[in-house]
């Protein structure tokens, strides 16, 4: 496909382990800070053993801050927090235009469902129903839409860890086809015992702080958060005289079709996602100034993704880093959070650190960006997100 007119990014909002807003996040990046630490939000036998990237606000604090949000799931609270920031930042009246909300999540209301299950398992008549009423992924999106006053189009995507990029791409396509004027797109996922134990059962969680793209990497740290962009059509930008932060220039969604959880050794799915995104944008590999890697820190992902990047970009590869060393892997939210980071890289002409890197992966030899660096020329940024089920997505943002 081709994009008829530009799909502009008019606003961005983010919350993660390294900050509750885009400004706080930039401050953390400038100081090369990590948000990884011990579990404090819930009881678990893994507390003190498995490091995680928690948002530094409890449910109660989030509910008070957002106002009137008692019994709302953590995934929705994080989503509302970031989506509100994005909309305020954009300065677009979402009720004036044909506006849609496209969110991504993998856990939905699982945090509350877990509470429900503790009682439900011993007696199926027990457990507070208000704890499961928001279980569905789509319910999370409803809660965000209701908070923002969006009544038109809503959608939720769950393609595991690539979900958010697909949400932003769907939004861009709906604007491109003239069906919507404004789309708030991104994703949200809270840390839950379900995902913590799931990834632990797969033995891909590092008991130390994760080391993406390092030879010594031995797994990921889970994180949580939300990231949303406000996408607007050319017409909205002109009529509202908006100073936009960048635009969506290309994206692609492919499937590795290799294994339910593992990536193919040569990263055929990720290679083709990056290649197709480039083709859509009309750019050459050499035009990309920074890649925000998927870079989970698992043996398999980083080798597979690194192999694909090395094959596509060759020896003169751009600056690249995995910000998951700072935030942890925020699953369905990661593509949204990292889309906001990509836009920040363009807006502030900077790149972000891949913390704790010491030695390159011997098979590929890629050396990521190790320190925050500003004063660069950043015109085109690629962001990768891959997930279980072989879902591979890549997106390119460009400077206006």
């Amino acid at each position: 496909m081709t994009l008829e007119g530009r799909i502009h990014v008019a606003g961005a909002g983010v919350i993660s382990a390294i900050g509750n807003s885009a400004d706080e996040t930039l401050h953390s990046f400038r100081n090369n800070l990590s948000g990884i630490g011990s579990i404090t939000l819930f009881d678990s036998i893994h507390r003190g053993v498995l490091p995680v990237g928690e948002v530094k606000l409890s449910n109660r604090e989030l509910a008070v801050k957002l106002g009137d949000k008692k019994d709302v799931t953590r995934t929705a609270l994080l989503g509302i927090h970031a989506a509100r920031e994005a909309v305020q930042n954009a300065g677009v009246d979402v009720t004036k235009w044909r506006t849609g909300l496209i969110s991504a999540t993998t856990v939905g209301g699982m945090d509350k469902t877990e509470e429900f299950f503790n009682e439900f398992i011993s007696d199926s008549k027990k457990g507070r129903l208000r704890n499961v009423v928001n279980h569905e992924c789509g319910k999370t999106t409803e809660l965000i839409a209701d908070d923002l006053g969006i009544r038109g189009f809503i959608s939720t995507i769950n393609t595991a860890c690539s979900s958010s990029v697909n949400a932003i791409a769907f939004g861009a396509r709906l604007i491109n086809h003239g069906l919507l004027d404004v789309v708030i797109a991104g994703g949200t996922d809270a840390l839950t015992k379900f995902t913590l134990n799931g990834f632990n059962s797969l033995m891909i969680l590092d008991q130390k702080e994760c080391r993406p793209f390092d030879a010594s990497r031995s797994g990921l740290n889970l994180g949580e958060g939300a990231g949303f962009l406000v996408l607007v059509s050319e017409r909205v930008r002109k009529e509202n005289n908006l100073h936009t932060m960048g635009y969506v220039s290309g994206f692609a969604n492919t499937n590795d079709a290799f294994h339910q959880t593992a990536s193919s050794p040569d990263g055929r799915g990720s290679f083709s996602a990056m290649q197709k995104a480039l083709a859509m944008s009309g750019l050459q590999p050499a035009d990309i100034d920074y890649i925000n890697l998927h870079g989970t820190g698992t043996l398999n992902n980083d080798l597979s993704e690194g192999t694909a990047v090395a094959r596509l970009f060759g020896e003169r590869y751009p600056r690249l880093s995995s910000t998951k060393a700072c935030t942890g892997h925020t699953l369905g939210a990661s593509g949204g959070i990292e889309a906001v980071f990509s836009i920040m890289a363009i807006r502030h002409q900077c790149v972000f650190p891949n913390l704790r890197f010491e030695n390159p992966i011997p098979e590929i030899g890629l050396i990521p960006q190790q320190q925050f660096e500003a004063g660069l020329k950043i015109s085109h940024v690629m962001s990768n997100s891959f997930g279980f089920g072989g879902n591979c997505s890549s997106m390119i943002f460009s400077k206006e």
Partner: protein
Amino acid sequence: MAVYINGKGNISPQKTWGDEPLLSSPRDYAGSKLECVQPDYTQFLDVRQLRRMSRVIKMGMAAGTLALREAGVAVPDGIITGTGYGCLEDTGTFLTKMVESNESALNPTPFIQSTHNTIGSQIALLLQCQGYNQTYTQRAFSFENVLLDCILELKDNPKQSILAGGVDEITNISHKIEERFGIYRQDSLSSLELFNSTGRGTLQGEGAAYFVLSGEKQNLCKVSLISVATFYKPGNHLLSDIEAFLKSCSLEAGDVDLVISGKSGDSRLGKEADLITSSLFPSSSTALFKHLCGEFSSASAFALWLGTRIIEEQQIPGIILERNAKRPVKNCLIYNPYFNDYHSLILLRAC
């Protein structure tokens, strides 16, 4: 641009595959849930593959395979799936084990298969389909989002054949929890009598229906998908939203030959559905279907299968007929409400 329905496969609480005439022997269920009639899955997959798959994945695989076979497509260009709840059985299994074993010694398989995209990705893996792969999960808009995505994809590149479906399963856990919300009938003795007896609540359903959609018409294809729309909390705009939808399709209400209504049989709901069929479409035939498949997030995929079959055969089975206008069915509108906040439209046309 037309989108052609070149193939379809439907695993549902009725026997909706094979050569039988449409709904010739409808199945009646007692109780408040309607579970799918299970085909012999070994005609689609080998025993080794089947062993690790949950029921919902098998149902999706079977429906997808049936659709591809009918369309004569070996590997589609993309796979798009809609599911409100995703893989509930595996989610429930992992959650239960996690609580019971206090987070120790957990088997990863149910976790791996719990994500919503497992159905679409298992089909991709089986077919070695490396193309576009997407999963929507917006409750009762999940399948409508799939169709919208398909329409956009095919506008960009009409040559593609896309496998598009809606899949949801009932589990013992989901039934026990949802029953407590008071949304299902108590003491229902006959599902086929759902609309003949007024009562609070509906019946819980499930199903898997996939379609092969393309911008290019296959020889045997008789039905095209014209448009789809979703309305979240439309309030009192619903009727005008429907009129605007028809206008965008260059149709007037009188052009609609058949309205398939997704009324659930819950006496507390369905007022909009009755208003729509009586005031907006007084001269159209009308039909109901949720006594056959139950209420669930992706029930509109069952309705799309039903509408397609009716247009193909030019016959509306008595079991679904609410009002017979005795018109040939060229334009068929599916209106699907889901509890209070979700309303959707799908327009089909004979081609």
